[in-house]
Protein backbone atom coordinates (compact mmCIF):
# COMPACT_ATOMS: atom_id res chain seq x y z
CA UNK A 1 0.00 0.00 0.00
CA UNK A 2 1.26 3.51 -0.83
CA UNK A 3 1.20 6.32 1.72
CA UNK A 4 -2.51 5.97 2.57
CA UNK A 5 -4.01 8.92 4.46
CA UNK A 6 -7.44 7.32 4.61
CA UNK A 7 -8.16 3.60 4.96
CA UNK A 8 -11.74 2.40 5.09
CA UNK A 9 -12.33 -1.27 5.83
CA UNK A 10 -15.67 -3.09 5.70
CA UNK A 11 -17.63 0.02 6.60
CA UNK A 12 -21.35 -0.61 7.09
CA UNK A 13 -24.23 1.63 8.10
CA UNK A 14 -27.69 0.30 8.67
CA UNK A 15 -30.49 2.76 9.53
CA UNK A 16 -33.16 0.63 11.20
CA UNK A 17 -33.16 -2.00 8.47
CA UNK A 18 -32.16 0.27 5.57
CA UNK A 19 -28.62 -0.64 4.49
CA UNK A 20 -27.23 2.75 3.44
CA UNK A 21 -23.58 1.63 3.25
CA UNK A 22 -22.85 -2.04 2.74
CA UNK A 23 -19.40 -3.31 3.69
CA UNK A 24 -17.27 -0.90 1.64
CA UNK A 25 -13.46 -0.73 1.67
CA UNK A 26 -11.22 1.75 -0.05
CA UNK A 27 -8.26 4.01 0.60
CA UNK A 28 -6.96 7.41 -0.46
CA UNK A 29 -3.25 8.00 -0.84
CA UNK A 30 -1.40 11.18 0.03
CA UNK A 31 -1.96 13.81 -2.65
CA UNK A 32 -4.62 11.75 -4.42
CA UNK A 33 -7.98 13.13 -5.53
CA UNK A 34 -10.64 10.44 -5.47
CA UNK A 35 -14.16 10.91 -6.81
CA UNK A 36 -17.12 9.35 -5.05
CA UNK A 37 -19.94 8.86 -7.52
CA UNK A 38 -23.35 7.30 -7.41
CA UNK A 39 -27.03 8.02 -7.89
CA UNK A 40 -29.13 9.65 -5.17
CA UNK A 41 -29.38 7.32 -2.17
CA UNK A 42 -26.23 5.41 -3.17
CA UNK A 43 -24.59 6.09 0.20
CA UNK A 44 -22.17 8.92 -0.71
CA UNK A 45 -23.33 11.37 1.94
CA UNK A 46 -23.62 8.67 4.63
CA UNK A 47 -20.04 7.62 3.83
CA UNK A 48 -18.78 11.21 4.17
CA UNK A 49 -20.75 11.69 7.39
CA UNK A 50 -19.07 8.59 8.85
CA UNK A 51 -15.65 9.84 7.73
CA UNK A 52 -16.34 13.09 9.59
CA UNK A 53 -17.59 11.37 12.73
CA UNK A 54 -21.06 12.88 12.37
CA UNK A 55 -22.61 9.45 11.88
CA UNK A 56 -21.40 6.35 13.67
CA UNK A 57 -20.86 3.18 11.58
CA UNK A 58 -22.42 -0.13 12.66
CA UNK A 59 -19.24 -1.96 11.79
CA UNK A 60 -15.96 -1.49 9.99
CA UNK A 61 -12.85 0.58 10.59
CA UNK A 62 -11.82 4.07 9.55
CA UNK A 63 -8.16 4.92 9.81
CA UNK A 64 -6.97 8.43 9.01
CA UNK A 65 -3.24 9.23 8.96
CA UNK A 66 -2.75 5.68 10.29
CA UNK A 67 -4.84 6.42 13.42
CA UNK A 68 -8.14 4.87 14.41
CA UNK A 69 -10.81 7.52 13.91
CA UNK A 70 -12.99 6.63 16.92
CA UNK A 71 -10.09 6.77 19.40
CA UNK A 72 -8.20 9.75 17.88
CA UNK A 73 -11.19 11.82 16.77
CA UNK A 74 -9.98 15.24 17.97
CA UNK A 75 -6.45 14.82 16.68
CA UNK A 76 -7.69 13.73 13.25
CA UNK A 77 -10.43 16.35 12.90
CA UNK A 78 -7.80 19.03 13.48
CA UNK A 79 -6.07 17.96 10.27
CA UNK A 80 -9.03 17.30 7.99
CA UNK A 81 -11.86 19.50 6.76
CA UNK A 82 -15.07 19.43 4.83
CA UNK A 83 -16.97 21.59 2.39
CA UNK A 84 -20.48 21.02 1.18
CA UNK A 85 -22.73 23.10 -0.98
CA UNK A 86 -25.51 22.19 1.43
CA UNK A 87 -24.17 23.50 4.72
CA UNK A 88 -24.46 27.13 5.77
CA UNK A 89 -23.25 29.44 8.51
CA UNK A 90 -24.84 31.56 11.22
CA UNK A 91 -26.74 34.01 9.06
CA UNK A 92 -26.49 36.99 11.39
CA UNK A 93 -22.72 36.85 11.58
CA UNK A 94 -20.54 38.52 8.98
CA UNK A 95 -18.35 36.48 6.65
CA UNK A 96 -15.29 37.36 8.74
CA UNK A 97 -16.99 36.59 12.06
CA UNK A 98 -18.13 33.16 10.88
CA UNK A 99 -14.64 32.27 9.69
CA UNK A 100 -13.14 33.63 12.92
CA UNK A 101 -15.34 31.23 14.93
CA UNK A 102 -14.02 28.29 12.91
CA UNK A 103 -10.46 29.58 13.21
CA UNK A 104 -10.92 29.31 16.99
CA UNK A 105 -12.41 25.81 16.74
CA UNK A 106 -9.40 24.71 14.67
CA UNK A 107 -6.99 26.56 16.97
CA UNK A 108 -5.49 28.63 14.11
CA UNK A 109 -2.55 30.90 14.91
CA UNK A 110 -2.91 34.43 13.54
CA UNK A 111 -6.48 33.83 12.32
CA UNK A 112 -7.11 37.29 10.83
CA UNK A 113 -4.17 36.93 8.44
CA UNK A 114 -5.24 33.42 7.35
CA UNK A 115 -8.85 34.51 6.84
CA UNK A 116 -7.75 37.49 4.75
CA UNK A 117 -5.58 35.27 2.54
CA UNK A 118 -8.43 32.83 1.90
CA UNK A 119 -11.00 35.56 1.30
CA UNK A 120 -8.68 37.06 -1.30
CA UNK A 121 -8.06 33.66 -2.88
CA UNK A 122 -11.79 32.95 -3.23
CA UNK A 123 -12.62 36.56 -4.22
CA UNK A 124 -14.73 37.23 -1.15
CA UNK A 125 -12.59 39.95 0.41
CA UNK A 126 -15.12 42.66 -0.53
CA UNK A 127 -17.80 40.75 1.40
CA UNK A 128 -15.72 40.39 4.55
CA UNK A 129 -18.03 42.58 6.65
CA UNK A 130 -21.26 41.56 4.98
CA UNK A 131 -23.81 39.48 6.88
CA UNK A 132 -23.81 35.87 5.68
CA UNK A 133 -27.59 36.22 5.33
CA UNK A 134 -27.09 38.46 2.30
CA UNK A 135 -24.71 36.20 0.37
CA UNK A 136 -25.68 34.56 -2.90
CA UNK A 137 -25.52 30.75 -3.21
CA UNK A 138 -22.27 30.99 -5.15
CA UNK A 139 -20.72 33.25 -2.49
CA UNK A 140 -21.83 30.83 0.23
CA UNK A 141 -20.20 27.95 -1.63
CA UNK A 142 -16.95 29.94 -1.72
CA UNK A 143 -17.30 30.78 1.96
CA UNK A 144 -17.59 27.05 2.64
CA UNK A 145 -14.37 26.52 0.71
CA UNK A 146 -12.64 29.25 2.76
CA UNK A 147 -13.72 27.40 5.92
CA UNK A 148 -12.52 24.11 4.45
CA UNK A 149 -8.97 25.41 3.91
CA UNK A 150 -8.75 27.39 7.15
CA UNK A 151 -6.78 24.72 9.05
CA UNK A 152 -4.45 23.76 6.16
CA UNK A 153 -6.05 20.30 6.00
CA UNK A 154 -4.10 17.28 4.80
CA UNK A 155 -7.31 15.51 3.82
CA UNK A 156 -10.45 17.23 2.67
CA UNK A 157 -13.94 16.01 1.85
CA UNK A 158 -15.61 18.04 -0.86
CA UNK A 159 -19.33 17.45 -1.36
CA UNK A 160 -20.23 19.15 -4.64
CA UNK A 161 -17.81 22.01 -4.02
CA UNK A 162 -18.62 23.86 -7.22
CA UNK A 163 -22.41 23.50 -7.20
CA UNK A 164 -24.05 26.88 -7.99
CA UNK A 165 -20.78 28.47 -9.09
CA UNK A 166 -20.37 30.35 -12.38
CA UNK A 167 -18.06 28.52 -14.80
CA UNK A 168 -15.27 31.08 -14.36
CA UNK A 169 -15.36 30.83 -10.55
CA UNK A 170 -15.66 27.02 -10.76
CA UNK A 171 -12.53 27.02 -12.93
CA UNK A 172 -10.68 29.11 -10.34
CA UNK A 173 -11.79 26.70 -7.61
CA UNK A 174 -10.45 23.77 -9.64
CA UNK A 175 -7.15 25.59 -10.07
CA UNK A 176 -7.00 26.29 -6.35
CA UNK A 177 -7.64 22.63 -5.53
CA UNK A 178 -4.92 21.50 -7.94
CA UNK A 179 -2.57 24.07 -6.42
CA UNK A 180 -3.36 22.75 -2.90
CA UNK A 181 -2.54 19.25 -4.08
CA UNK A 182 0.62 20.33 -5.92
CA UNK A 183 2.05 22.51 -3.16
CA UNK A 184 0.76 20.88 0.02
CA UNK A 185 0.05 17.34 -1.15
CA UNK A 186 -3.55 17.61 0.07
CA UNK A 187 -5.68 14.49 -0.50
CA UNK A 188 -9.32 14.90 -1.45
CA UNK A 189 -12.51 12.89 -1.59
CA UNK A 190 -14.71 14.60 -4.13
CA UNK A 191 -18.39 14.18 -4.94
CA UNK A 192 -20.16 15.91 -7.78
CA UNK A 193 -23.01 15.32 -10.18
CA UNK A 194 -20.90 16.93 -12.90
CA UNK A 195 -19.14 14.00 -14.59
CA UNK A 196 -16.87 16.25 -16.67
CA UNK A 197 -15.66 17.83 -13.44
CA UNK A 198 -14.96 14.42 -11.90
CA UNK A 199 -13.06 13.33 -15.02
CA UNK A 200 -11.02 16.53 -14.94
CA UNK A 201 -10.32 16.55 -11.20
CA UNK A 202 -10.00 12.95 -10.03
CA UNK A 203 -7.15 10.48 -10.26
CA UNK A 204 -9.50 7.68 -9.37
CA UNK A 205 -13.24 7.21 -9.14
CA UNK A 206 -15.26 5.01 -6.79
CA UNK A 207 -18.77 4.19 -7.95
CA UNK A 208 -21.33 3.52 -5.24
CA UNK A 209 -24.72 2.03 -5.91
CA UNK A 210 -27.20 0.97 -3.23
CA UNK A 211 -24.48 1.24 -0.60
CA UNK A 212 -21.94 -0.95 -2.38
CA UNK A 213 -18.82 -0.15 -4.36
CA UNK A 214 -19.63 -1.37 -7.86
CA UNK A 215 -16.54 -0.04 -9.68
CA UNK A 216 -13.28 1.68 -8.79
CA UNK A 217 -10.63 2.78 -11.27
CA UNK A 218 -9.17 5.77 -13.08
CA UNK A 219 -11.72 7.75 -15.13
CA UNK A 220 -10.00 6.58 -18.35
CA UNK A 221 -10.08 2.90 -17.43
CA UNK A 222 -13.71 3.18 -16.34
CA UNK A 223 -14.74 4.59 -19.70
CA UNK A 224 -13.08 1.57 -21.34
CA UNK A 225 -15.80 -0.60 -19.76
CA UNK A 226 -18.02 0.69 -22.55
CA UNK A 227 -16.84 -0.56 -25.93
CA UNK A 228 -19.28 1.45 -28.05
CA UNK A 229 -18.92 4.98 -29.34
CA UNK A 230 -21.69 7.32 -30.39
CA UNK A 231 -21.86 8.66 -33.95
CA UNK A 232 -24.28 11.52 -34.63
CA UNK A 233 -24.92 12.37 -38.27
CA UNK A 234 -26.94 15.23 -39.71
CA UNK A 235 -28.25 15.02 -43.28
CA UNK A 236 -29.54 17.43 -45.86
CA UNK A 237 -32.42 15.24 -47.01
CA UNK A 238 -34.96 13.17 -45.04
CA UNK A 239 -33.73 9.95 -43.55
CA UNK A 240 -35.65 7.24 -45.41
CA UNK A 241 -32.62 5.99 -47.35
CA UNK A 242 -30.33 6.14 -44.32
CA UNK A 243 -32.83 4.34 -42.13
CA UNK A 244 -33.01 1.49 -44.65
CA UNK A 245 -29.21 1.44 -44.72
CA UNK A 246 -29.03 1.01 -40.94
CA UNK A 247 -31.79 -1.61 -40.77
CA UNK A 248 -30.09 -3.65 -43.52
CA UNK A 249 -26.86 -3.75 -41.50
CA UNK A 250 -28.52 -4.34 -38.15
CA UNK A 251 -27.12 -1.12 -36.61
CA UNK A 252 -28.28 0.17 -33.24
CA UNK A 253 -29.67 3.63 -34.05
CA UNK A 254 -32.05 6.36 -32.95
CA UNK A 255 -33.61 9.31 -34.79
CA UNK A 256 -33.84 12.25 -32.34
CA UNK A 257 -34.75 14.78 -35.08
CA UNK A 258 -36.07 14.45 -38.66
CA UNK A 259 -32.61 14.92 -40.23
CA UNK A 260 -30.41 13.54 -37.44
CA UNK A 261 -29.34 9.98 -36.74
CA UNK A 262 -27.51 8.61 -33.71
CA UNK A 263 -25.71 5.30 -34.15
CA UNK A 264 -24.13 3.32 -31.32
CA UNK A 265 -21.24 1.26 -32.64
CA UNK A 266 -17.67 0.14 -32.03
CA UNK A 267 -15.04 2.83 -32.63
CA UNK A 268 -13.24 0.86 -35.37
CA UNK A 269 -16.47 0.55 -37.42
CA UNK A 270 -17.03 4.32 -37.70
CA UNK A 271 -14.78 4.84 -40.76
CA UNK A 272 -16.32 1.91 -42.66
CA UNK A 273 -19.92 3.10 -42.03
CA UNK A 274 -19.16 6.66 -43.10
CA UNK A 275 -17.47 5.47 -46.35
CA UNK A 276 -20.43 3.22 -47.17
CA UNK A 277 -22.93 6.03 -46.55
CA UNK A 278 -21.01 8.36 -48.92
CA UNK A 279 -20.91 5.61 -51.57
CA UNK A 280 -24.71 5.27 -51.26
CA UNK A 281 -24.88 8.95 -52.26
CA UNK A 282 -26.08 10.26 -48.89
CA UNK A 283 -25.15 13.91 -48.22
CA UNK A 284 -23.86 14.32 -44.66
CA UNK A 285 -23.80 17.92 -43.36
CA UNK A 286 -22.40 17.28 -39.85
CA UNK A 287 -20.54 14.49 -38.05
CA UNK A 288 -20.07 14.22 -34.27
CA UNK A 289 -18.15 11.30 -32.78
CA UNK A 290 -18.49 10.92 -29.04
CA UNK A 291 -16.41 8.46 -27.10
CA UNK A 292 -17.93 7.04 -23.90
CA UNK A 293 -17.43 9.22 -20.85
CA UNK A 294 -18.08 8.86 -17.13
CA UNK A 295 -21.71 9.84 -17.60
CA UNK A 296 -22.19 6.80 -19.86
CA UNK A 297 -20.39 4.59 -17.36
CA UNK A 298 -22.59 5.99 -14.59
CA UNK A 299 -25.77 5.31 -16.58
CA UNK A 300 -24.63 1.83 -17.57
CA UNK A 301 -23.80 0.87 -14.00
CA UNK A 302 -27.06 2.20 -12.60
CA UNK A 303 -29.16 0.71 -15.40
CA UNK A 304 -27.47 -2.70 -15.31
CA UNK A 305 -28.00 -2.89 -11.55
CA UNK A 306 -31.66 -1.98 -11.97
CA UNK A 307 -32.02 -4.62 -14.72
CA UNK A 308 -30.47 -7.33 -12.57
CA UNK A 309 -32.79 -6.31 -9.74
CA UNK A 310 -35.82 -6.56 -12.04
CA UNK A 311 -34.65 -10.00 -13.24
CA UNK A 312 -34.51 -11.18 -9.65
CA UNK A 313 -38.02 -9.98 -8.91
Amino acid sequence: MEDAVLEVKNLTKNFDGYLAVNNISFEINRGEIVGLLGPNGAGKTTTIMMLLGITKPNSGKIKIFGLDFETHRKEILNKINFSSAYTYFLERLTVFENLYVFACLYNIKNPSQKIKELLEKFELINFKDKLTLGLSTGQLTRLNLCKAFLNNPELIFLDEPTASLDPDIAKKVHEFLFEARREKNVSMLYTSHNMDEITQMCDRVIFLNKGKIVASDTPLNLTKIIKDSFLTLTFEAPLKKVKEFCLKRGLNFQIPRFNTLEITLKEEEIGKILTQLVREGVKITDIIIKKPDLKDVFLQIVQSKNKSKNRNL
Partner: protein
Amino acid sequence: MNLLRIKGIVIQNLFYLRHSLEEFVETFFWPAIDVIIWGFMTTYFTQLKGSLFQVIGFLMAGLILWNIVWRAQQDISMSLLKNVWSKNILNLFSTPLTPGEFVVATMILGLFKIFLTLSVISALAFFLYYFNIFSLGFYLLPFFVNLIAFAWASGIFITGLIVRFGMRIQSFAWSLITLFQPLSAVFYPISILPSFLQKIAWFLPSAHIFEGMREVLKNGMVSSEHLFWAFGLNLIYLILADWFFIFMFEKAREKGKLAKVEI
Protein backbone atom coordinates in the same frame (compact mmCIF):
# COMPACT_ATOMS: atom_id res chain seq x y z
CA MET B 1 -65.13 33.18 -2.02
CA ASN B 2 -64.33 29.65 -3.08
CA LEU B 3 -65.08 27.02 -0.45
CA LEU B 4 -62.66 24.51 -1.95
CA ARG B 5 -59.73 26.95 -1.67
CA ILE B 6 -60.69 27.77 1.94
CA LYS B 7 -60.86 24.02 2.62
CA GLY B 8 -57.38 23.68 1.06
CA ILE B 9 -55.86 26.13 3.53
CA VAL B 10 -57.74 24.64 6.51
CA ILE B 11 -56.59 21.15 5.51
CA GLN B 12 -53.01 22.40 5.05
CA ASN B 13 -52.94 23.65 8.63
CA LEU B 14 -54.54 20.48 9.99
CA PHE B 15 -51.95 18.36 8.14
CA TYR B 16 -49.23 20.59 9.59
CA LEU B 17 -50.65 20.20 13.08
CA ARG B 18 -50.59 16.41 12.66
CA HIS B 19 -46.86 16.43 11.85
CA SER B 20 -45.80 19.22 14.19
CA LEU B 21 -45.64 18.06 17.77
CA GLU B 22 -44.68 21.55 18.94
CA GLU B 23 -47.75 23.24 17.47
CA PHE B 24 -49.98 20.50 18.82
CA VAL B 25 -48.51 20.81 22.32
CA GLU B 26 -48.59 24.61 22.27
CA THR B 27 -52.28 24.53 21.46
CA PHE B 28 -53.02 23.51 25.03
CA PHE B 29 -49.69 23.84 26.88
CA TRP B 30 -49.59 27.59 27.62
CA PRO B 31 -53.28 27.98 28.52
CA ALA B 32 -52.98 24.95 30.85
CA ILE B 33 -49.88 26.35 32.56
CA ASP B 34 -51.58 29.76 33.02
CA VAL B 35 -54.67 28.15 34.55
CA ILE B 36 -52.57 26.06 36.97
CA ILE B 37 -50.31 28.94 38.13
CA TRP B 38 -53.11 31.48 38.48
CA GLY B 39 -55.28 28.90 40.25
CA PHE B 40 -52.62 28.28 42.90
CA MET B 41 -51.92 32.02 43.22
CA THR B 42 -55.57 32.80 43.78
CA THR B 43 -55.76 30.11 46.48
CA TYR B 44 -52.66 31.62 48.11
CA PHE B 45 -54.02 35.19 48.06
CA THR B 46 -57.30 34.17 49.67
CA GLN B 47 -55.34 32.66 52.60
CA LEU B 48 -52.77 35.46 52.86
CA LYS B 49 -52.49 37.45 56.07
CA GLY B 50 -49.34 39.53 55.44
CA SER B 51 -49.14 43.17 54.28
CA LEU B 52 -49.61 44.18 50.65
CA PHE B 53 -46.01 45.38 50.56
CA GLN B 54 -44.80 41.92 51.58
CA VAL B 55 -46.97 40.26 48.90
CA ILE B 56 -45.49 42.55 46.24
CA GLY B 57 -42.04 41.62 47.53
CA PHE B 58 -42.77 37.90 47.19
CA LEU B 59 -44.12 38.36 43.68
CA MET B 60 -41.31 40.62 42.48
CA ALA B 61 -38.54 38.44 43.92
CA GLY B 62 -40.21 35.33 42.46
CA LEU B 63 -40.52 36.99 39.08
CA ILE B 64 -36.91 38.18 39.02
CA LEU B 65 -35.46 34.90 40.21
CA TRP B 66 -37.66 32.80 37.90
CA ASN B 67 -36.38 34.88 34.99
CA ILE B 68 -32.88 33.69 35.87
CA VAL B 69 -34.00 30.07 35.49
CA TRP B 70 -35.98 30.73 32.33
CA ARG B 71 -33.31 32.81 30.56
CA ALA B 72 -30.35 30.64 31.53
CA GLN B 73 -32.12 27.46 30.38
CA GLN B 74 -33.14 29.07 27.09
CA ASP B 75 -29.63 30.35 26.40
CA ILE B 76 -28.26 26.81 26.58
CA SER B 77 -30.87 25.38 24.21
CA MET B 78 -30.95 28.36 21.84
CA SER B 79 -27.23 28.14 21.32
CA LEU B 80 -27.75 24.79 19.62
CA LEU B 81 -30.96 25.83 17.87
CA LYS B 82 -29.32 28.88 16.27
CA ASN B 83 -26.82 26.54 14.64
CA VAL B 84 -29.54 24.09 13.61
CA TRP B 85 -31.69 26.84 12.05
CA SER B 86 -28.67 28.12 10.10
CA LYS B 87 -27.72 24.57 8.96
CA ASN B 88 -24.34 25.05 10.62
CA ILE B 89 -24.38 21.90 12.78
CA LEU B 90 -22.40 19.78 10.33
CA ASN B 91 -19.74 22.46 10.02
CA LEU B 92 -19.58 22.79 13.79
CA PHE B 93 -19.32 19.14 14.78
CA SER B 94 -16.96 18.21 11.95
CA THR B 95 -14.36 20.33 13.78
CA PRO B 96 -12.48 19.02 16.85
CA LEU B 97 -15.20 20.59 19.03
CA THR B 98 -16.53 18.06 21.55
CA PRO B 99 -20.11 18.02 22.89
CA GLY B 100 -18.69 18.79 26.37
CA GLU B 101 -16.86 21.89 25.10
CA PHE B 102 -20.03 23.04 23.36
CA VAL B 103 -22.00 22.74 26.60
CA VAL B 104 -19.36 24.58 28.68
CA ALA B 105 -19.25 27.41 26.12
CA THR B 106 -23.02 27.83 26.26
CA MET B 107 -22.91 27.85 30.08
CA ILE B 108 -20.36 30.68 30.08
CA LEU B 109 -22.41 32.61 27.56
CA GLY B 110 -25.55 32.04 29.63
CA LEU B 111 -23.85 33.39 32.73
CA PHE B 112 -22.86 36.58 30.94
CA LYS B 113 -26.35 37.11 29.52
CA ILE B 114 -28.03 36.40 32.84
CA PHE B 115 -26.04 39.21 34.48
CA LEU B 116 -27.37 41.56 31.82
CA THR B 117 -30.96 40.34 32.33
CA LEU B 118 -30.67 40.53 36.10
CA SER B 119 -29.27 44.07 36.02
CA VAL B 120 -32.10 45.37 33.86
CA ILE B 121 -35.03 43.66 35.62
CA SER B 122 -33.76 44.38 39.14
CA ALA B 123 -33.30 48.07 38.21
CA LEU B 124 -36.82 48.18 36.77
CA ALA B 125 -38.25 46.53 39.90
CA PHE B 126 -36.43 49.06 42.08
CA PHE B 127 -37.40 52.20 40.19
CA LEU B 128 -40.96 51.19 39.32
CA TYR B 129 -42.02 49.22 42.41
CA TYR B 130 -39.43 50.17 45.08
CA PHE B 131 -38.46 46.51 45.38
CA ASN B 132 -34.78 45.87 45.95
CA ILE B 133 -33.74 42.31 45.07
CA PHE B 134 -30.52 42.92 47.03
CA SER B 135 -32.63 42.99 50.18
CA LEU B 136 -32.12 39.21 50.01
CA GLY B 137 -28.58 40.10 51.10
CA PHE B 138 -25.94 37.39 51.28
CA TYR B 139 -28.57 34.75 50.39
CA LEU B 140 -28.87 36.17 46.88
CA LEU B 141 -25.57 34.48 45.97
CA PRO B 142 -26.50 30.85 46.85
CA PHE B 143 -30.00 31.42 45.41
CA PHE B 144 -28.46 32.71 42.20
CA VAL B 145 -25.91 29.87 41.95
CA ASN B 146 -28.57 27.22 42.54
CA LEU B 147 -31.09 28.65 40.12
CA ILE B 148 -28.41 28.92 37.41
CA ALA B 149 -27.32 25.34 38.09
CA PHE B 150 -30.91 24.11 37.85
CA ALA B 151 -31.40 26.08 34.62
CA TRP B 152 -28.20 24.63 33.16
CA ALA B 153 -29.22 21.08 34.05
CA SER B 154 -32.65 21.62 32.43
CA GLY B 155 -31.09 23.33 29.39
CA ILE B 156 -28.57 20.55 28.85
CA PHE B 157 -31.33 17.92 29.20
CA ILE B 158 -33.57 19.70 26.68
CA THR B 159 -30.65 20.22 24.26
CA GLY B 160 -29.95 16.49 24.43
CA LEU B 161 -33.56 15.80 23.45
CA ILE B 162 -33.34 18.22 20.50
CA VAL B 163 -30.06 16.66 19.27
CA ARG B 164 -31.66 13.22 19.32
CA PHE B 165 -35.20 13.97 18.12
CA GLY B 166 -34.57 17.03 15.93
CA MET B 167 -36.60 20.12 15.23
CA ARG B 168 -39.94 18.41 15.84
CA ILE B 169 -39.46 19.16 19.52
CA GLN B 170 -37.69 22.51 19.26
CA SER B 171 -40.44 24.27 21.21
CA PHE B 172 -39.28 22.33 24.27
CA ALA B 173 -36.45 24.87 24.31
CA TRP B 174 -38.83 27.58 25.48
CA SER B 175 -41.70 25.58 26.94
CA LEU B 176 -40.43 22.58 28.90
CA ILE B 177 -38.95 24.57 31.79
CA THR B 178 -42.35 26.20 32.29
CA LEU B 179 -43.62 22.77 33.26
CA PHE B 180 -41.51 23.09 36.42
CA GLN B 181 -42.83 26.56 37.27
CA PRO B 182 -46.06 25.52 39.06
CA LEU B 183 -44.13 22.90 41.05
CA SER B 184 -41.31 25.31 41.87
CA ALA B 185 -43.84 27.41 43.79
CA VAL B 186 -42.43 30.65 42.41
CA PHE B 187 -45.34 32.89 43.45
CA TYR B 188 -46.88 30.89 46.32
CA PRO B 189 -45.62 28.51 49.04
CA ILE B 190 -45.39 24.79 48.45
CA SER B 191 -48.07 24.22 51.09
CA ILE B 192 -50.62 25.56 48.57
CA LEU B 193 -50.00 22.57 46.28
CA PRO B 194 -51.99 19.34 46.72
CA SER B 195 -50.06 16.93 48.94
CA PHE B 196 -48.99 14.55 46.11
CA LEU B 197 -47.57 17.50 44.17
CA GLN B 198 -45.78 18.75 47.29
CA LYS B 199 -43.86 15.45 47.44
CA ILE B 200 -42.75 15.88 43.82
CA ALA B 201 -41.95 19.58 44.31
CA TRP B 202 -39.37 18.85 47.01
CA PHE B 203 -37.31 17.07 44.34
CA LEU B 204 -36.87 20.36 42.50
CA PRO B 205 -33.94 22.55 43.63
CA SER B 206 -35.92 25.58 42.45
CA ALA B 207 -38.74 24.76 44.94
CA HIS B 208 -36.22 24.89 47.83
CA ILE B 209 -34.84 28.19 46.58
CA PHE B 210 -38.20 29.92 46.20
CA GLU B 211 -39.32 28.61 49.56
CA GLY B 212 -36.05 29.93 51.02
CA MET B 213 -36.53 33.27 49.27
CA ARG B 214 -39.89 33.76 50.98
CA GLU B 215 -38.36 32.85 54.35
CA VAL B 216 -35.64 35.49 53.89
CA LEU B 217 -38.13 38.18 52.88
CA LYS B 218 -40.35 37.28 55.85
CA ASN B 219 -37.86 36.49 58.64
CA GLY B 220 -34.51 37.70 57.30
CA MET B 221 -33.00 34.21 57.23
CA VAL B 222 -33.36 30.83 55.58
CA SER B 223 -33.06 27.34 56.99
CA SER B 224 -29.83 25.69 55.89
CA GLU B 225 -31.86 22.57 55.01
CA HIS B 226 -33.29 24.28 51.92
CA LEU B 227 -29.84 25.34 50.71
CA PHE B 228 -28.40 21.90 51.42
CA TRP B 229 -31.17 20.18 49.42
CA ALA B 230 -30.88 22.65 46.55
CA PHE B 231 -27.11 22.19 46.26
CA GLY B 232 -27.35 18.40 46.53
CA LEU B 233 -30.16 18.02 44.00
CA ASN B 234 -28.44 20.38 41.57
CA LEU B 235 -25.24 18.40 41.76
CA ILE B 236 -27.10 15.18 40.94
CA TYR B 237 -29.14 16.78 38.14
CA LEU B 238 -26.10 18.43 36.55
CA ILE B 239 -24.23 15.12 36.48
CA LEU B 240 -27.30 13.32 35.09
CA ALA B 241 -27.96 16.05 32.49
CA ASP B 242 -24.34 15.93 31.25
CA TRP B 243 -24.49 12.17 31.01
CA PHE B 244 -27.86 12.38 29.22
CA PHE B 245 -26.57 14.94 26.69
CA ILE B 246 -23.50 12.86 25.79
CA PHE B 247 -25.71 9.74 25.59
CA MET B 248 -28.20 11.48 23.29
CA PHE B 249 -25.39 12.93 21.17
CA GLU B 250 -23.98 9.42 20.65
CA LYS B 251 -27.49 8.07 19.95
CA ALA B 252 -27.95 10.81 17.34
CA ARG B 253 -24.65 9.78 15.73
CA GLU B 254 -25.77 6.14 15.69
CA LYS B 255 -29.15 6.94 14.17
CA GLY B 256 -27.69 9.43 11.68
CA LYS B 257 -29.83 12.18 13.24
CA LEU B 258 -26.95 14.57 13.82
CA ALA B 259 -26.58 14.87 10.04
CA LYS B 260 -30.31 15.64 9.77
CA VAL B 261 -31.01 17.46 13.03
CA GLU B 262 -32.83 20.25 11.19
CA ILE B 263 -35.60 17.79 10.23
